C-alpha cells in the first residue's frame, strides 16, 4: 500500500517543487541562440512601387498613343508632313488633247481654300508631276486600312500624272466613295488603283468651265483638304523639286530610295507597346567573400560548393517612345542550381570499459563495483552530396534602343534589376562545419538594387503582332547576400534568352 502511496507522494512533491532562479537572465541567454528576427518584409512597398511604375508607364504609353499621328507601313513610321506649296505659272502640262492638265492652276486660292477648310494643309503641286497619287484617309477612327487610298491616274500625252495626297479627316466615311465617284472610279475594279481617265476628263472639263482645278472642285464639294503624302520615286519629283524646300527634298529622295515605286499603305500605327515572354538559361560566375576572421567555413564552402546553371522566365511590358527608343519593366523568376559535395568530420569522445576496476560503498552500505573506464576518441567521416537551389524574383527595369532592318530588329537594353524576393532551398554547411539538411532560408536579400543588366537582342518579325526574340544578357551583381551570416556571395550571369514579343 505504502509503495504506491510513496510513489504518488514523491511524484506530487517533486512536481510541485519550485526553483529560485532568474528567468529573465536565462531568456536572454536563450535569445542569443535563436535565429535573428527578420526585418519587416519590404515586399509590399516594393510591389506597390512596381505597380506605380507600371501604371505610370502605361499612362505614358496611352499619352503617346493619343498624341501620335504617325502611320506605320511595313513597320516604318511615316510622318505626314505639312507642306507649303508655292504658286506656279509655269510647268503647264498639256494632255493628249491639248488641254491644260488639272493641277496647273494650283494657286494661293487653293491654299486659302485648303486653309479655310482644314487646320492642316498641303497639296503637292502637280503641274508637271509625272506621277502622284491622291489618297484620301477617312477620319481617324476609320483609318485602319488601306481601303481609303484612292489612286488617281492621269494620262497625258507623254506621261502619266498622278497625285498622291491624303485627305484630312473630320469627314464622313462616305467621302471616299464620293471622291471615288467624282474621279470616275469604276467600282467593279479595285478602287485603290483604278484608272479614272473618263472621270478625270469630266473634271477637267468642269475645271475649264469654272476656272477651278479638279482638286479645288473636290475641296469645294467635300469641304475638305488634301494633305500631301509621300512620293515614292525620284522620277515624279522632277517637276516639283523646285517648289520644295531642301529638307523636304532630301526627305523625299530618301524615302523614294527606300521605297522605290512601292505604295505605302497608310495604316495607322496600331501598337506602341508590347509584351515579351522570355525563357532563359544562364551561365554563372559565383564569388564568395569571407566576412569573418575565421576562414574555415569560407574555405570549406569554396571547396564543397559548385555552381551548375541558372534557368528563368520573364514577363515584360515594353513601351515605345518612338521608333527607336523604348523602356520596359518586367517580373522575372530565376533559379540557380548548385551542387554540394561535403565530407563532414565529427570527432566524438566516449567512455569505454578498461581493464581497471573500482569499488565503493554506496549509501545503502553496500559495496558496489564499477568497471574501469577510459576515454576513446572516434573520428567519423560522413560524405554528403546534394543539389540545392537559389530562387530569385526580380523586377528588371530597362531602357532600350532598337534599330530595324527589314524584318529584323536589333536592340540594346540596359538597366537596374530590383530583387523583391529571394530564398534558398537545400542543404548547407553550418557555421560549426556540420551538415545541415533541408535548410530553407527566405527573404534574406539585403539590397533592393541587386544587379545591372546589359543585353543585346535580335527580333525577327513573325507577322503583324508577333516577333521572335533572342538575346544575350550580362547581369553584373551590385550587392551580395549571405545565407549563413559568415560568407557573402554574389552571382554574375550571362543569360541566353529566347522569347516571343507580342505587339499591343
Amino acid at each position, binding site marked *: *500500500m*505504502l*509503495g504506491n*502511496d*510513496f*510513489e504518488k*507522494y*514523491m*511524484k506530487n*512533491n*517533486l*512536481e*510541485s*517543487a*519550485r*526553483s529560485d*532562479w532568474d*528567468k529573465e537572465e*536565462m*531568456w536572454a*541567454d*536563450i*535569445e542569443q*541562440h*535563436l*535565429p535573428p*528576427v*527578420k526585418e519587416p518584409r519590404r515586399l509590399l512597398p516594393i510591389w506597390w512601387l512596381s505597380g506605380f511604375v507600371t501604371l505610370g508607364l502605361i499612362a505614358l504609353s496611352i499619352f503617346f498613343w493619343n498624341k501620335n499621328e504617325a502611320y506605320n507601313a511595313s513597320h516604318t513610321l511615316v510622318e505626314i508632313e505639312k507642306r507649303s506649296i508655292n504658286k506656279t505659272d509655269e510647268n503647264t502640262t498639256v494632255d493628249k488633247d491639248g488641254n491644260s492638265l488639272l493641277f496647273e492652276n494650283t494657286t494661293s486660292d487653293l491654299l486659302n481654300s485648303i486653309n479655310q477648310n482644314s487646320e492642316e494643309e498641303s497639296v503637292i503641286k502637280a503641274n508637271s508631276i509625272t506621277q502622284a497619287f491622291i489618297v484620301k484617309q477617312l477620319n481617324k477612327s476609320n483609318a485602319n486600312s488601306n481601303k481609303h487610298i484612292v489612286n488617281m491616274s492621269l494620262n497625258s500625252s507623254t506621261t502619266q500624272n498622278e497625285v498622291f495626297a491624303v485627305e484630312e479627316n473630320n469627314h464622313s466615311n462616305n467621302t471616299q466613295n464620293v471622291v471615288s465617284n467624282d474621279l470616275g472610279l469604276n467600282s467593279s475594279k479595285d478602287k485603290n488603283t483604278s484608272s479614272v481617265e473618263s472621270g478625270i476628263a469630266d473634271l477637267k472639263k468642269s475645271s475649264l468651265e469654272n476656272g477651278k482645278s479638279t482638286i479645288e472642285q473636290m475641296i469645294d464639294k467635300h469641304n475638305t483638304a488634301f494633305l500631301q503624302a509621300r512620293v515614292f520615286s525620284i522620277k515624279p519629283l522632277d517637276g516639283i523639286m523646285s517648289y520644295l524646300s531642301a529638307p523636304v527634298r532630301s526627305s523625299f529622295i530618301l524615302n523614294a530610295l527606300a521605297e522605290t515605286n512601292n505604295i505605302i499603305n497608310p495604316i495607322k500605327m496600331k501598337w506602341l507597346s508590347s509584351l515579351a515572354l522570355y525563357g532563359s538559361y544562364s551561365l554563372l560566375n559565383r564569388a564568395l567573400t569571407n566576412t569573418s576572421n575565421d576562414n574555415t567555413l569560407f574555405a570549406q564552402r569554396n571547396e564543397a560548393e559548385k555552381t551548375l546553371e541558372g534557368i528563368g522566365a520573364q514577363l515584360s511590358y515594353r513601351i515605345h517612345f518612338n521608333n527607336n527608343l523604348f523602356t520596359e519593366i518586367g517580373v522575372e523568376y530565376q533559379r540557380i542550381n548548385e551542387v554540394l559535395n561535403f565530407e563532414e568530420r565529427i570527432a566524438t569522445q566516449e*567512455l569505454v570499459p578498461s581493464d581497471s576496476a573500482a569499488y565503493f560503498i*554506496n*549509501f*545503502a552500505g553496500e559495496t*558496489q*563495483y*564499477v*568497471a574501469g*573506464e577510459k576515454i576513446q576518441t572516434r573520428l567519423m567521416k560522413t560524405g554528403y552530396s546534394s543539389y540545392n537551389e537559389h530562387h530569385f524574383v526580380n523586377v528588371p527595369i530597362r531602357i532600350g534602343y532598337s534599330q530595324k532592318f527589314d524584318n529584323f530588329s536589333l536592340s540594346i537594353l540596359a538597366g537596374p534589376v530590383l530583387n523583391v524576393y529571394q530564398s534558398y532551398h537545400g542543404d548547407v554547411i553550418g557555421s560549426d562545419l556540420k551538415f545541415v539538411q533541408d535548410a530553407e532560408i527566405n527573404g534574406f536579400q539585403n539590397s533592393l538594387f541587386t544587379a545591372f543588366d546589359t543585353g543585346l537582342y535580335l527580333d525577327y518579325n513573325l507577322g503583324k503582332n508577333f516577333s521572335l526574340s533572342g538575346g544575350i544578357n550580362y547581369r553584373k551583381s551590385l550587392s551580395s547576400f549571405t545565407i549563413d551570416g559568415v560568407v557573402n556571395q554574389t552571382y554574375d550571369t550571362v543569360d541566353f534568352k529566347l522569347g516571343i514579343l507580342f505587339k499591343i
Partner: protein
Amino acid sequence: MDIDKLIQNCINNDRESQKQFYMLTAERLMNVSRRYTKDISDAKDILQNAYIKIFKKLENFDSEKGNLNSWLTKIVINEALQLLRKNKRLAEREQIGNQQFEELSTPEVIARLQAEDVMKLMKLLPDGYRIVFNMSVVEGYSHREIAAALNISESTSRSQLTRAKRMLRDLLNDQKTAELC
C-alpha cells in the same frame, strides 16, 4: 492567446511570443531539469539547451500525436541525459536482483516533508538511481522505455528503481532519526 496561435507565432520566429511561451513553460521544465541533476547550474544548462531545441523543432510538434507538456518534458529529459552521459556513464554494470521494497513505516515523516526537501533528498541519490526513479515514478516511463533511453537492460532499470526507492527510504529514516533527536 490560445496555445496553437502562440506556437504558430513561435514557429514564425516572433520574439514576443517565444518569450511568452518560455515564461509559461519554464517553471515546470526547470522542475523537470532539476530532478535529473544535482547541481542547479547543470539544470540551467539543460533547460537553456532544451529551449533552443524546442524553438528549433517546434514546427515538428503535432498536437494530434501527443501532448505538448509530454513533448517538452521529453526534450528536457533528453538534454539531461545527454549532459549526464558526458559526465558519467549511467549504466550500472553490477546486476542486482530484484528486491522487494519494504514498506515505509513512518508515513508521518513523509507527510512533514515539503517538496523542496524531497528534491534535496533526490539529489543524494546516485545519478543512475535518480534518473530511473524520475523516469519511472514521476514521468511514468516503462522499464522498456527507460532501458532504451539509457542504453541499459530492463533488469538494470528495475534494479536501479528498487535501489533508489530503498535508498530514499533509508534517507527518510535518517531524517526521521535526526528530527527525533
